[in-house]
Structure formats: C-alpha cells, structure tokens
C-alpha cells in the first residue's frame, strides 16, 4: 500500500519536477536569505577580520598575540577550568536528580522538567541579578550564616559565584539528555541482576551507570561548550576579576575597540566550543540518538 502510494507520488511529481523544486526554494528563500546575510556573512567577516591588523593588512598577529601572551593563555585556561568545573557540578547534582525523576509519574516528571528549564526561560539579566541578591551581603545566605555566628565570606565576584550561577542555568542541559539515556535502559536488566544476587550498588555500578554514559557525555559536551561561551551570567556574577574569554571579546570590541583582536578571541572560542559540539552531534547522528542542544 505504501509502496503503491510512493510510486504514484513519483509518477505525479516527475513531470512536474521543476515547479516543485521552485516551490521548495521559494518557501525556503526567506530562511536562506536571513541566514546567508545575518549568520554566514557575519561569521565570515569575523574570520576575515581576525586575520587583519587594525589598518586592514593581512596578519596572523592576533592569534600569535593571544597564544603568546601569558595573560591571555591564563584567560583561556581559566575559561576551560570554569567550564569543566560547571560540567562536574551539573553532573554531581544532575545525575541523582535524573535518577529521582526517573522514579516519578509522567505528570510529576513533566513538572520537574519544567522546573529544571525555568532558569532558561527567565531573562538572564534578572536571573543573574537574583543571584546577586541571594549571594549578596544582605541576602539569605549571608543572613543564615550570620545567624549561626559565622562572618559570611565574600560570595560574589569570584569563580565560585560564576560556578553557582552557571550550574543553575546549565543543569537542564545535563539532566534532559541523561533522562533520555536512563529511559532507554531495558527495565528488566536491574531486576534480573538482583534476582541473580547482585546488590543495589552493584546494579548501579555495573548496569545503570555504564548504560547512561551516552547521556552523560552528551550533557557534559553541551554544558561545557555553552558555559565556555556564556557572557552575561559570568560578567554580572564574576565581574572583571573573573577572567573569561567572552568577557574579553566584549571589552576588546566595545571598550578597547580592537575589532580584529576581538574577532580572533571570538574565533578561538568558536573553535573550542562549536568544534566540540558539531563533532559530537556528527558522532551522534552516525550512532542513533537525537541531538539535544539548544
């Protein structure tokens, strides 16, 4: 039946092939124009500018400067460090949370997913501002510590503040792919292992954890690269003292006005983050799972 349908479909569409191609192109045209002019062209401009001096001559000096300057090497290192720590933080909180979610009814799970995603749906300025209040000198954390007679340490404008703010936003990107992996585990495996005498821990270490590795890996990749490239949350919670690459892309572009250098830092950032994500999504597509990032 389906084969017959496909056959007649081909017979109908073959003589009319050209108009169909034209319709498709026409429908896609707005999207093509938008992305050619506002995505592809700006990125090409950026790459081209990163190989120029301020006066326009060709140079590789911007990259040499970035990689040769110990200060900027530290910025790169710090960016990778904060991204890695955020990833670990998301994994430590996200894995038990995913396990907790797995045991709930579909309704509760949906609510929990919404709760996880809620930070992503709130304006990032407001979200970061909220953390300024929570961690600030008049906030609840300082209040609770003072109540116990502890002088609150400086909670803001350091790596820890950035880490807290980033784990908060990124948690959903870790838990959702993880849930996908956990859901794919054959539900009879654990009872079978238990029937054969395995303890709860053994089941976890030998079955659940290894089989959820693809989800962990997907979540980790997404969290890492999105964290390495985020600007607003680290800028507000960390301030200028926390030296991260996106912050320098911004200041070089708007304060120092060294556009070629800003472009070069931006492009290094793309190589670090996008390269990772695209490489991974290609791997995934070759495998089976769906690509989960946004």
């Amino acid at each position, binding site marked *: 039946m389906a084969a017959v349908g496909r056959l007649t479909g081909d017979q109908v569409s073959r003589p009319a092939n050209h108009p169909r191609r034209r319709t498709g192109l026409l429908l896609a045209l707005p999207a093509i124009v938008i992305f050619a002019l506002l995505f592809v062209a700006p990125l090409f401009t950026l790459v081209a500018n990163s190989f120029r001096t301020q006066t326009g001559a060709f140079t590789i000096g911007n990259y040499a400067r970035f990689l040769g300057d110990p200060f900027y090497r530290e910025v790169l290192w710090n960016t990778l460090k904060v991204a890695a720590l955020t990833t670990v933080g998301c994994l430590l909180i996200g894995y038990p949370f995913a396990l907790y979610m797995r045991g709930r009814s579909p309704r509760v799970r949906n609510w929990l997913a919404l709760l996880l995603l809620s930070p992503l749906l709130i304006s990032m300025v407001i979200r970061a501002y909220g953390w300024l209040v929570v961690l600030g000198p008049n906030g609840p954390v300082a209040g609770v510590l003072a109540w116990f007679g502890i002088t609150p340490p400086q909670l803001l404008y350091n790596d820890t503040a950035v880490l807290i703010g980033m784990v908060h936003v990124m948690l959903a990107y870790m838990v959702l792919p993880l849930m996908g992996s956990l859901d794919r585990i054959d539900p009879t495996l654990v009872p079978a292992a238990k029937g054969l005498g395995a303890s709860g821990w053994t089941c976890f270490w030998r079955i659940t954890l290894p089989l959820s590795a693809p989800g962990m890996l997907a979540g980790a990749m997404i969290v890492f690269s999105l964290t390495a*490239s985020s600007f607003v949350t680290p800028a507000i919670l960390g301030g200028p003292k926390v030296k991260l690459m996106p912050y320098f892309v*911004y200041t070089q572009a708007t304060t120092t006005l060294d556009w070629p250098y800003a472009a070069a830092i931006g492009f290094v950032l793309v190589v670090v983050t996008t390269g990772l994500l695209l490489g991974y999504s290609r791997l995934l597509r070759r495998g089976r799972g769906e690509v989960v990032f946004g």
Partner: protein
Amino acid sequence: MTRLTRALGTVFAVLVGLFLIAPVAVTVASSLTTTSYVTFPPQGITLRWYAEVFGKPEFLSSFVLSAGVALAAAAISAVVGLAGGLAIHRYRFPGRGALEAVLSSAFAVPTIVLGIGLLQWFAQMGLASSPLTLLLAHLVLTVPYAVRLVLAGLAGLDRSAEKAAAGLGAPPFLVFWHVTLPAVRGALVGGAFFAFITSFDDLTVALFVVTTDLQTLPVRIFNYMQYDYDPTVTAIGTLMVLFAVVAVVVIERFVGVARLFGADTDHK
C-alpha cells in the same frame, strides 16, 4: 533502608528545587521591601518600587522598544519557520542540505560570537543601529527554534490525511488550510511565544547592536545595575518574570517546553 533512601531522595529533590527557584523567588520577594537597598527577607511591604518603575520614562521607552522588536521577531519567525520547515520537510531544492546544516549549527555558535560578528558586519555594510538591525539580529536567534518545532509538527502529521483530502477533491490551498496547518499550529504558537521571550530577554546580542539612545530593556537594566543598587530592578524583574510565566504557560500548553530544547519527554 528503602524508606531512608526515599526520604533522602525527596530531601535532595526539594533542595535542588529551592536552588532552581532561589534567584527568582528572592527577586520577587525583595521587590516589596521598604528599604532603599535590596535585602532579603524584605522589610515591610510596599509597592513603591513598582511606582518607581513606571515613573522612569527611560524604562518605559526601553520596554516599548523591546516589546516591539520581540513582537516582530515572533511574527516573522513563525512565518519564516513555517515556510522553511515545509520546504525542508517536503521538497528537494538546491541548497537544502546547506540550509539544514546552517540552521543546526546556529544552535552551536556562541551568542557572543554572533553578536560581535553582526557588529562588524553591520559596520562594514554601513548599517547604523536601529530597531531594524536589532530585529534582524534576533531573527538569527529565533528562526532555528521555529523551524525545529515546525519540523517536529510535520513529522507527526500523517500524510495520508492530506492525500485523502486531495483525493476527495480539495484544492491544494484548502488541504493546507484544513489539514497541514492544524498539524503545525501548536508548533507555530509555541515557536512564536518562544521567539518573543528570546528576543525580549536577549542581552548578549543586543549589547553589540544597540547604542546609548537605543537600549532594549535588558540592556537598560544591565547598565542601571552597574550604578544603582535600589530595589527598582527587582520590581522590573518581577514584571519580566510574570511576562515569562505567561509565555511559558502558552508554550507548555501548545508544544511542551522540553521539546523546545530538543528533549523528548514523552514516554512510551
């Protein structure tokens, strides 16, 4: 033992829940404080800071700019997303593969890199900052989501329904209107609302595209925060959260928030 682990699990989940809602809850609560600085728990209750927001014309003009651009971004994303989604799902045309690749890599390119790229590209083209350039920049952020949702909607549509309608003599336009469009209606509404909040909340790209006399609401707040620590920002924040809640309710109703982020929460 199992009861203990269960209890521990619940405690853990509650703590994570508190962590997730902490910044918003604290912002909303401290917008009511009578003190002239932000504090939690708030002291006393007043709506003074809300009056303060409406007494600041620069916040109102920023709101109008942000809302206008966001509405346009929502409408255009829905239309472009529908057309693009249909084209990719149904037709073979030159550039189809490239379009798909570009749309999916748009999710992966850091927003800050897009912002600086657009800044340099607009300058090179001689385009001065205007609400239009802001809108164009935001379309790059919103259209990929619209296309993704439309494609998901079309994937769920049984094509035999369209064939049946056509076979019964319905002209192509009526087939589209009565069969195809209803299948992607949820995707369109959800996509439009998501485009609205994405554009309305965007700070990263806007920082590169705006100027001092053209500030969106997030940019205005960001700049205000650098100098003032009074509770006005918490009042604006609360209003923006209310906005987002409305959008989320609509998105959840029509497509499900999780699907927007590419996750599949439907369980077999």
